[in-house]
């Protein structure tokens, strides 16, 4: 049987993947759509191929492998650490390129030496690509954990930290948040009863007032946001609105986000920044440095790797490393990966399972191979 779009190098790549000590898995092409939409958000809906079963279950053609591989792992309940590899077709609605193409990759589940697992993911993706593509590869690395440490170090209240962390990786959203922090809005007027209770600072009475109103208007007090939750956020919002980031902290945040350095010099750049901004981010710096050391230990080519402070993904299950490998500076991205320590629990694992992985875009690799 021949497969449309199956690149000629696929069987070599499959053997290379299996030689990395990862068990090959295959997952059904037709998948329940819920987990994908739940993880990646509604925006995914128009980029996947959706259908419905006769019984009304929402199904889709596999748009990627990470979620199916992780769900299969959870369903089988096998012990960790465990590594999986895959190579197969994925389906997405794309304006450029074919709607069906191949991806291959590795998911590394349950390795507790995070620096080692991170380094291995980057190095393996790099090695696999080097064997396939003649062009020089450039790797860009980001770290959500470092950003989280900087935001915490600025002494912002938790509510503001969460807003900024949630926007990390989406430059537009992050700029909007920083603008809000620089010029806080005036407290919003609420109805007089609420305003009086807020003024009195009595969260319990506020919650019971909200309960009464909800009951009187036919709203369940537990189906959606609860009275206590609304009351708590009212109080918190009032506090957040009074926060204004000092000019020094604001400029620290901005200069952090502008940082970019060769990976070999990144730890030094980070500690220089921390020192000049007066931030204590030693723990995050240490973890970052450990990953760089681990990369050196596996003989990775640090010279082709760059750290960019603002590089991240605005999805709530990414927790640390993110990376992309492109053919040359600014060329098409051939591989992408990262650490998603929160995903396994979101997908139903009983205990937290650290997870890191990467995937290779076989169609783009094919195109890069055919360029002179």
């Amino acid at each position, binding site marked *: 049987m021949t497969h449309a779009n199956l690149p000629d190098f696929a069987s070599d790549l499959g053997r290379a993947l299996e030689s990395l000590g990862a068990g090959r898995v295959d997952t059904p092409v037709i998948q329940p759509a819920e987990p994908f*939409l*739940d993880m*990646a*958000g*509604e*925006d995914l*809906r*128009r980029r996947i191929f959706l259908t419905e079963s006769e019984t009304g279950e929402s199904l889709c053609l596999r748009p990627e492998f990470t979620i199916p591989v992780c769900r299969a792992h959870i369903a089988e309940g096998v012990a960790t650490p465990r590594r999986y590899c895959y190579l197969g077709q994925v389906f997405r609605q794309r304006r450029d390129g074919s709607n069906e193409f191949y991806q291959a990759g590795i998911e590394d589940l349950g390795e507790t030496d995070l620096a080692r697992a991170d380094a291995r993911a980057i190095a393996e993706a790099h090695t696999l690509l080097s064997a396939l593509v003649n062009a020089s590869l450039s790797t860009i690395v980001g770290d959500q954990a470092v950003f989280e440490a900087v935001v915490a170090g600025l002494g912002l209240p938790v*509510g503001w930290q*969460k*807003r900024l962390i*949630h*926007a990390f990786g*989406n430059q*537009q*959203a992050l700029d*909007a948040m920083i603008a*809000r922090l620089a010029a806080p809005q005036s407290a*919003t007027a*609420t*109805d007089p009863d*609420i305003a009086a209770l807020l003024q009195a600072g009595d969260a319990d009475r506020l919650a019971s007032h*909200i309960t009464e*109103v*909800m009951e009187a*208007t*036919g*709203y*369940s007090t537990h*189906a*959606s*946001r609860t009275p206590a*939750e*609304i009351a708590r*956020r*009212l109080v918190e*919002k009032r506090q957040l609105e009074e926060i204004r980031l000092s000019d020094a902290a604001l400029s620290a945040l901005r200069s952090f986000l502008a940082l970019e350095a060769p990976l070999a010099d990144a730890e030094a750049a980070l500690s220089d920044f921390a020192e000049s901004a007066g931030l204590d981010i030693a723990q995050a710096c240490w973890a970052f440095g450990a990953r760089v050391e681990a990369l050196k230990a596996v003989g990775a080519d640090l010279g082709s790797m760059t750290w960019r402070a603002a590089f991240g993904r*605005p*999805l*709530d299950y990414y927790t640390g490393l993110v990376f992309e490998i492109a053919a040359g500076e600014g060329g098409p991205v051939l591989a992408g990966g990262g650490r998603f320590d929160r995903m396994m629990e*979101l997908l139903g694992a009983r205990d937290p399972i650290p997870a890191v992985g990467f995937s290779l875009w076989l169609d783009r690799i094919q195109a890069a191979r055919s360029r002179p």
Partner: protein
Amino acid sequence: MTLTIALPSKGRMKDDALAIFARAGLDVTSVGNDRSYRGRIEGLDDTEVAFLSASEIARELGAGSVDFGVTGEDLVREGLSQADSRVEICARLGFGHADVVVAVPEIWHDVTTMADLGDVAADFRARHGRRLAIATKYWRLTQNFFSTRHGIQLYRIVESLGATEGAPASGAADIIVDITSTGSTLVANHLRVLDDGIILRSEACLVRARRPEHASDPRIAEAIARISASLG
């Protein structure tokens, strides 16, 4: 070539559309009886009228199978991806006003803006074990507004084909995106529109399918000019 104009087939939308056409000197008559789904315009033998439902009109415009249509902007923008490249809104007709809005339970006093909603959505999964649920029939408008305009990704759409405004009270969803003209249905259901929660201020529009042959057809510009002039 025969020009096809699609007009609403019933109700206020039909009456208002016919009135505007009449003011422009374009008298539309039904072919056969009053309930016929085909019509013609007095004195314009190379033009035909198709009476269709407002959402069918949006779809036919998108497919380019009619030249002009009168329908709500909400239906055009919801029904067609990349609407502006496929159709042109030639004139806003001043009737069928309705806003597509984001509305939350009135009791959510802490949520007055989309930024507030973004905070709530970000935390929702951790607090409730599920994503924030939005009841709507406006999938495309909701996704564009939440994801593209406001960078809010973490929510789920619950399809609602009727009585959307009842979804929060019944527990079917947490908030809604729906159409409202006076806001009274929202108030009756204890819902409140966010300060920056107006997705689209819609009204009936004269819409043209972007067909290449229109460029060389003088009747196109003339039709648009006559309707526009009659709006005063």
